[in-house]
C-alpha cells in the first residue's frame, strides 16, 4: 500500500511537472497561472513521495535487522540444543562405560565368592568324610563287622536294597581313601 502510494505520488509529480508546459499556452494568463499551480503541486507530490520512500526504507532496514536477529536466535538455539544433546549423549555413554566396568567388577567378585563357596563345600564334605571314617575306625576297633557298621552309621540292614548298596559303596569309598 505504501509502495503504491509512493509510486502514485511520483507519477503525479512527473505528470504535473511535464504535462502543463506542453499542454497549456504561456501567452494565456490562466494557462500560465495553472502551470505555476501544477509545478507547485508536482513539487509537493515529489516531496511527499520522497518522504514516504525514506520512511519505508528505514522500516525495511529495521525489518531486515529484526529478521537477521530472529534468524541468529534460531541458529543459536539450534546450535545450543545440538550441543546439549551431544553432551547428554556423551554423559550417558560415559555412565554406561562406568556401569560396564562396575559390572565387570561385580562379575569378578561373584566368581571369586563362588570359588570360595566351592572350596568351603569341599572342605565340609571332607570334614564329614573324616568324621564318618573316624566313626568307622572306632567301630572296627570295637570289633564290628561291615554289616553292623553300616547298620550303626547309615541305619540300613544288610540286603539287596538300593539304600544298603549306596551305603556299602560309601563305606568302601571311605575305606579305600583311608587305604584300609
Amino acid at each position: 500500500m505504501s509502495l503504491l502510494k509512493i509510486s502514485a505520488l511520483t507519477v503525479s509529480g512527473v505528470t504535473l511537472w511535464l504535462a502543463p508546459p506542453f499542454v497549456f499556452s504561456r501567452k494565456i494568463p490562466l494557462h500560465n497561472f495553472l502551470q505555476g499551480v501544477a509545478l507547485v503541486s508536482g513539487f509537493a507530490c515529489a516531496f511527499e513521495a520522497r518522504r514516504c520512500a525514506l520512511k519505508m526504507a528505514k522500516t525495511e532496514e529495521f525489518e531486515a535487522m529484526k529478521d537477521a536477529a530472529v534468524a541468529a536466535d534460531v541458529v543459536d538455539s539450534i546450535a545450543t540444543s545440538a550441543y546439549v544433546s551431544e553432551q547428554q549423549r556423551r554423559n550417558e555413554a560415559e555412565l554406561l562405560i562406568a556401569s560396564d566396568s562396575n559390572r565387570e567388577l561385580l562379575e569378578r567378585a561373584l566368581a571369586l565368592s563362588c570359588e570360595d563357596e566351592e572350596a568351603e563345600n569341599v572342605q565340609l564334605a571332607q570334614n564329614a568324610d573324616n568324621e564318618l571314617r573316624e566313626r568307622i575306625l572306632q567301630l572296627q576297633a570295637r570289633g564290628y563287622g561291615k554289616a553292623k557298621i553300616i547298620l550303626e552309621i547309615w541305619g540300613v540292614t544288610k540286603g539287596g536294597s538300593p539304600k544298603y548298596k549306596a551305603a556299602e559303596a560309601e563305606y568302601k569309598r571311605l575305606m579305600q581313601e583311608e587305604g584300609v
Partner: protein
Amino acid sequence: MTKAIALGNNFLLTAIASSFLCWLASLHPSLLLFVQALFALKLIISATAWLLDDAIIALLGIGLLQFRFRLIGGTIGALVGVGVMLCRS
C-alpha cells in the same frame, strides 16, 4: 527499491524547482534577473563544492562518491528543469 525511488524523487524535486524558477522568470523581467542570479549562485556554489569536496564531505559526514553523485545529480536536474521550460510552447 525504496531508496532508489527516494533518489529519483530527489532528482525530480530539483528539476521541478528549477522549472518553477524558470516559470517565475517568465512572469516579469526583474524576476528573470533574480532567477538568473540564483542560477549563477548555484553554479558558483557547485563549483566551490566540487573544489572543496574533501572539507565538505568531512563536514557533512558522507562519502566522496555520494557527494559527487549528489552534486552531479543536482546539476543535471537543474539543467533538465530549465530545458523543459525552454522547450515549452
